């Protein structure tokens, strides 16, 4: 069965074929520009195995230092001297740590979205960068986990949040959104890791056959003895399909539940029924941005990537970004509308505080970054196809989305129903530790880029096999044959 985009691709292609002819078309679309399997495999291997430049090591070292100091040393300080080191107080009991948690979970959503949803809908352009996206999911979740544990006042007792048999007749409180959170995030981390691993198997198998020394052993263990027999492929396909369908609800549930941390609270501006979808869209928004950045970086820094990642992919991501940005705008407006129309005096006060208060600049900055900039740039097909531009937009969007979370958490909790306690939040140790998580994220990514094939070769090959030019009488069309 053919997905929706086949048809439009078809029509689109016909017109284009007549004007330009096949050649131009080949270099435009990866799927129509096949290379021999062996050569493509070697390209991927090279891109992975190529000796890291001194630049790579420089960046790697700096990041490691940053992680060591900002993340781990500072965390030590935080544990030694307590949450007082951070900027939290009454009424802002929650600070940047939770902002970062939400932010990183958001980032992690793009991966699943790209690889699972697009896979389910058979969007062909996804093929070369599913892996890059999935890596984002896993690494992002790691940062999210770190951030939420930084937030705990007595982190060494965090295991009390886990349901385990004890003689105190005590279990985690299942009424508490935080408990749901914990369960949801762990589920998501597990499933997304699995889902990252499955499509990886054929590639590491490929790598195993093309590498020597410790790498060989490494890939040997990872490949689980995959030899590419018919049976193995069928099993793998089934497994991936099941996971692709199974992980989508998980992904949606996770961020909905995260949103419930706020939606279920009694604070003005928080108890809003639309938070679930609002947060999901927000997550995708930042996630897509991040994906764009990652792709641009990969394309710029790694060998042979110009071949695998082309304008068309940025174009596709750009379209998605635009749509999601619009959706986000809708939900934002909707949320604002309801809050404002509700007429509760504290909420009114809060909305006013958002715009005109000391953090007003951030509120407007959010709108500019999340709506104005994407809409201004992403409407143009040519601009959409320029990697650096899309990457910049991605950065802008991520800044905007971070602002959004910052406004929802520390800025909003400044206003509560007891005016006597209102106070503005001034971050402390959170800033370096937040930077630490970012550094760790990049660090993990850099390491991964040298350890596992960032391009799912087999998927690309599969796609290329499926696409071909067919001649029907005088006219040539692009046909896509079903694989399964």
């Amino acid at each position, binding site marked *: 069965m053919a997905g929706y985009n086949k048809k439009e691709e078809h029509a689109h292609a016909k017109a284009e074929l007549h004007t330009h002819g096949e050649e131009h078309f080949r270099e435009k679309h990866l799927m129509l520009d096949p290379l021999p399997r062996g050569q493509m495999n070697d390209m991927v291997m090279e891109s992975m195995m190529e000796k890291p430049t001194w630049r790579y090591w420089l960046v790697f070292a700096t990041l490691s230092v940053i992680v060591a100091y900002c993340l781990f040393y500072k965390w030590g300080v935080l544990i030694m001297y307590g949450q007082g080191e951070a900027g939290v107080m009454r009424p802002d009991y929650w600070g940047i740590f939770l902002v970062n948690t939400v932010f990183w979970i958001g980032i992690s959503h793009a991966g699943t979205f790209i690889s699972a949803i697009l896979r389910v809908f058979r969007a062909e352009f996804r093929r070369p960068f599913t892996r890059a996206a999935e890596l984002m999911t896993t690494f992002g979740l790691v940062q999210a986990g770190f951030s939420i544990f930084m937030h705990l006042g007595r982190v060494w007792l965090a295991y009390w949040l886990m349901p385990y048999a*004890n*003689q105190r007749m005590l279990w985690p409180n299942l009424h508490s959104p935080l408990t749901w959170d914990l369960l949801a995030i762990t589920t998501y981390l597990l499933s997304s890791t699995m889902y990252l691993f499955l499509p990886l198997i054929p590639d590491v198998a490929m790598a195993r056959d093309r590498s020597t020394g410790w790498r060989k052993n490494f890939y040997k263990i990872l490949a689980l003895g995959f030899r590419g027999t018919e049976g193995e492929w069928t099993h793998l396909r089934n497994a991936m399909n099941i996971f692709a369908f199974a992980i989508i609800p998980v992904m949606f549930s996770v961020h909905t539940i995260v949103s419930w941390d706020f939606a279920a609270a009694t604070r003005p501006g928080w108890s809003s029924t639309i938070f679930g979808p609002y947060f999901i869209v927000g997550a995708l928004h930042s996630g897509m941005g991040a994906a764009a950045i990652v792709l641009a970086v990969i394309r710029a820094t790694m060998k042979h990537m110009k071949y695998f990642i082309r304008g068309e992919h940025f174009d596709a991501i750009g379209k998605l970004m635009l749509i999601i940005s619009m959706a986000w705008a809708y939900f934002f407006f909707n949320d604002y509308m309801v809050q404002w129309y509700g007429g509760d005096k504290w909420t009114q006060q809060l909305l006013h505080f958002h715009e005109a208060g000391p953090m007003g600049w951030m509120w407007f900055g959010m709108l500019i970054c999340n709506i104005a900039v994407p809409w201004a740039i992403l409407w143009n097909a040519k601009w959409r196809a320029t990697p650096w531009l899309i990457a910049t937009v991605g950065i802008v969007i991520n800044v905007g989305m971070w602002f959004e979370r910052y406004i929802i958490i520390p800025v909003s909790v400044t206003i509560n129903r007891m005016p006597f306690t209102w106070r503005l939040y001034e971050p402390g140790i959170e800033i370096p530790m937040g930077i630490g998580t970012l550094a760790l994220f990049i660090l993990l990514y850099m390491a991964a880029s040298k350890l596992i094939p960032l391009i799912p070769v087999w998927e690309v090959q599969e796609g290329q096999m499926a696409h071909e030019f067919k001649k029907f009488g005088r006219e040539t069309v692009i046909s896509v044959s079903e694989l399964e």
Partner: protein
Amino acid sequence: MIKRFFDWLRQPLGLIAVGIVFLTLFSFAAYGLYTTQQPPEQPVQFPHKTHVAFGIQCLYCHPGAATGPAAGIPSQAKCWGCHNQIVKTQTSLLLAPLKEAVISGKPLEWVPVAQVPDFVQFNHRAHIAAGQNCENCHGDMSKVTIAENPQVFNMGFCLDCHKKVAGDDHEKLVKLVDCGTCHY
């Protein structure tokens, strides 16, 4: 390579190596356990069993238990009240510290072994009033010299008993398993 390692493990030498590793770990761990289980140093090797054998009631020396939160350690005056009439006291080495303490007027430094953490508010009176006997928690003192705890006082220990006592009486259970009964 990994395979080679496992193969090596399979042959007797390997097994012995594994055994040694396990044993060393185990002995360290065992020693660790052992240290945690040592009773503390006491100034006098106080023989509870002798005193119980004389038919002295717990509440005679620990009267606080009946009237208040803490049972208390008897004042030396109380010890001396009986002991200065006992000839053996003058001679016995065991009692030398007591004698010395009474003469010098320095209190003996006892180390209580039955303890609950500082965040637990325990009240002896209520338990005695509820008809609990000392030995229910502190074990049979007619068998030990220095008091030692038959069991750790952890929350499970308390709750088990509380639930047993409450039985099917709602009102009572509400009181007895309420967090605020012990933690505030």
